[in-house]
């Protein structure tokens, strides 16, 4: 079966699962079933059918798993958001539409991701500018400064900066990997590469630290640091970067815990939430109670106890940072673990694309995106389950939030482009090869 037909099959499967979830929510709250909801479901199906058709034309040999996984996760997210607050689902649906539009634009404008390598400094600068702008003109919500208000929208630039930084680092590190792997001199017996190659990476570290201190956001800082350390390691295969990166981040984290009260609160609550049960630890404990209530199979979509009788969520921010809590409560351990495995499947496809890619830039780009995706997922699921300190970050495709879903759809577009190019070079038809050559 061709990759596209396989994808269509998976999409139908994802569609079936999503439909069941929708129906479950409707019957759970049957009073709210109406025509708009059905139209809504059809629009959702339409979006992914269109993206699939776009792939058939422009990315014929792209990976067949990524789009169905995206559809499944987005459907679960929309269903759960609809279940928590129907009006938000409408907004999220519009964001999905915008994200799909950006996906299409990414595919049509970029055509071949190899082009991006040429603009890496520009892209890196844009990413940096987005973060600096957030620090300078950002708005603080829930103690963290992550949003910029513009044109009537709240944008979370770090979600887009994430993509820009990965593109930049993939290009930069692919170029400089040899220099970075060969130590120029030794300091206290530790091999250290020349400063001019190491310098930009120090900039990255300072950036992470600045995010921690000025944006007061442990999660994003950890995400950027992980992307950076991960890519350094994958480019050079030198463990010293991992050790140095982890050490530097641990040092930065320790400083932040002392000087940033918001980070300190989060850390204390993580260590022992019980004394703060009605204050700073309320959210985390309610999350744990709600997850524990899910049991093995859960009550089913639309049937868990997620809303107070006045329709406010039992956990503050349930539709954004704590969406996984809602999913775990209603789908139980089987569903929650299933979702984690679906994310892992996505990550696996990402790394597989990286491993098979024919050139360093493609490899690092795909692996960097996969790393970013994996770490982001881990940070938020680990946070709401108290495996690691809680930090506000979105669960890709599932959480409510326009920036998150649009940025992550662009991430999927980039991965699909890399896989398409790889598969064509490794075994596509002559026609496909010719088309690919034209793009470059």
């Amino acid at each position, binding site marked *: 079966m061709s990759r596209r037909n396989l994808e269509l099959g998976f999409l139908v499967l994802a569609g079936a699962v999503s439909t069941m979830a929708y129906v479950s929510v409707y019957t759970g709250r049957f009073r709210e079933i109406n025509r708009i909801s059905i139209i809504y479901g059809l629009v959702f199906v339409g979006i992914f059918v269109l993206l699939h058709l776009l792939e058939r034309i422009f990315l014929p040999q792209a990976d067949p798993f990524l789009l169905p996984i995206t559809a499944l996760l987005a459907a679960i997210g929309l269903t759960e958001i609809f279940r928590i607050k129907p009006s938000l689902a409408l907004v999220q649906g519009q964001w999905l539409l915008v994200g799909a539009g950006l996906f299409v634009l990414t595919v049509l404008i970029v055509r071949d991701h190899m082009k991006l390598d040429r603009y890496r400094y520009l892209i890196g600068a844009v990413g940096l500018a987005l973060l600096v702008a957030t620090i300078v003109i950002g708005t603080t919500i829930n103690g963290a400064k992550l949003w910029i208000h513009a044109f009537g929208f709240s944008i979370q630039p770090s979600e887009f900066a994430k993509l820009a930084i990965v593109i930049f680092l993939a290009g930069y590190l692919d170029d400089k990997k040899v220099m970075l792997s060969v130590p120029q001199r030794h300091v206290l017996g530790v091999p250290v590469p020349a400063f001019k190659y190491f310098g930009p990476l120090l900039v990255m570290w300072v950036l992470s630290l600045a995010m921690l201190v000025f944006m007061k956001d442990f999660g994003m800082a950890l995400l950027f640091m992980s992307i950076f350390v991960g890519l350094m390691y994958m480019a050079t295969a030198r463990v010293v970067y991992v050790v140095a990166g982890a050490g530097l981040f641990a040092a930065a984290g320790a400083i932040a815990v002392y000087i940033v009260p918001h980070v300190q609160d989060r850390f204390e609550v993580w260590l022992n939430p019980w004394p703060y049960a009605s204050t700073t630890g309320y959210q985390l404990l309610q999350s744990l*109670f709600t997850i524990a209530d899910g*049991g093995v199979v859960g009550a089913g979509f639309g049937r868990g106890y997620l809303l107070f009788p006045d329709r406010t969520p039992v956990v503050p921010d349930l539709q954004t940072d704590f969406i996984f809590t809602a999913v775990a409560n209603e789908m139980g351990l089987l569903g929650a673990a299933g979702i*984690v495995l679906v994310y892992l499947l996505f990550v696996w496809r990402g790394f597989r694309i990286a491993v098979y890619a024919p050139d360093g830039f493609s490899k690092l780009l795909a*692996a960097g995106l996969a*790393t970013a995706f994996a770490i982001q*997922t*881990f940070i938020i699921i680990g946070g709401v389950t108290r*495996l690691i300190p809680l930090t506000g970050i979105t669960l890709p495709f599932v959480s409510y939030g326009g920036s998150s879903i649009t940025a992550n759809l662009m991430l999927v577009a980039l991965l699909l482009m890399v896989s398409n190019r790889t598969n064509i070079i490794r075994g596509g038809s002559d026609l496909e090869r010719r088309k690919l050559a034209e793009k470059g």
Partner: protein
Amino acid sequence: MNKAMSKVFIVSVVLFVALVVNLTWIMVVRAQWFQDRPQNKRSIAKEMKIKRGDIIGYDGSVIAGTERRSGYYYRDYPNGTLAPQLVGYDSIRYGRSGIEAQLNDELTGQSSDLGVQNWVDKLLGRRPKGANVKVTLVPAVQKVAQQQLQGQKGAIVLLDPKTGALIASASAPTYDPANLEDQWARLIKDTSAPLLNRPTQGLYVPGSAFKVVTASAGLDTGKVTPDTQFVDTGTYVVFGGKVTNYGGEVYGPNNFTYALTASINTTFAKVGNTLGRKRLIAGAQQYGFYQTPPLPLPAGEIVASGRYGKKGLLSPDAFMDPLDVAWAACGQEKLLATPLQMALVAGGVANGGRVMKPYYLQEIVTSEGQVVSKAQPEQWQVATKALTADQLNTMMQNVVNAGTGTAAALEGIQVAGKTGTAEKGDGTNLAWFIGFAPAEDPQVCIAVVIEDTQSTGGEAAAPLAAAVIKTALAQPALP
């Protein structure tokens, strides 16, 4: 590069497996443990689908009823808010307190002793029906007690000294349990503590009201009689310190009865030292001090009276020098008492020296109308000999007839009592009145405490006691 990428992928796998292991831990292994945490209010929502039993006053009127809104039963209070700090709140967000928390299993029909029908329902997995709880609070008396406290800070407790039934329990400032969600943030920050159930949780310096206990110990041990003579010079010097009278008064020669009537500190200080630390504290223990009164309430909502240090209640054996004993005999030093405990002191005297177990639960009636539990009055403490109680009764009548407590006197009803005025050192007083009526056959005993007042116990607390006692004795039926 590929090898390094595989390693990063393996790290991702490890992290994701850790997520699944942790999820299993939370959702399966520790699920019940999380359910059982007191901070976990999720079960409350499930219980709010059950028709919660009413809390009914002694006169049969509903104190806390229910109202059904979109599948959930909410409390409503058809007769206004009566004793909200004792009855407690029932909030889907903030949990429960007071009787609502204490009798939750009965009110939600989940208790195992609610009759056969309830048991059958449980076997068949039907949603239980809550049992109604009838309490000994008499709404008419409770209302007057609350009115008397309006605009002030303090508490009024009224019991039947012969049974221990709690007739009224008022705490001010108060709150409205019906709209708790909207007020919660303000209520928990309010320094005047409207959520505090002052009658059982409020610890106050008992001041001269404690002299009843000192007198009881003195008379019971035979160290003094009502006629024992003392001479007051305005100052009693002991152990490098001195005890003086309220307002710097000098009384000259006085007998023990007059010393209680006029509340002479120096005489009680001397009696205290004649008794010594052990006998004085033992006397207090006989009235129930150093024990949590056996009124069933959630942990922390009822506290013991006694001497308090920085770390809470001191041992009854804790060291006291003679100056400490002298001031403790006057109800000062480190002594703290709840209004309930002080009402029980008056009740002990009223009931011939026997303190009855305080209770509020009259009966539990299942949704089928079957009475499954009925109050059985029980004795709690033997405080004094009957003779001592008789002598104290007469002495306390004197306080109301000719002493500091004249404002508590009622037309045609002989009230007996004792006032107390504890100076807080910031210019305000704590005003007390404890007593009972009618003195010859006591039907009610009372404690009134008013915080932050410029007046004395005789001025600020005694008239309130009179008003509440008058209302109580006019009731057609008391528990």
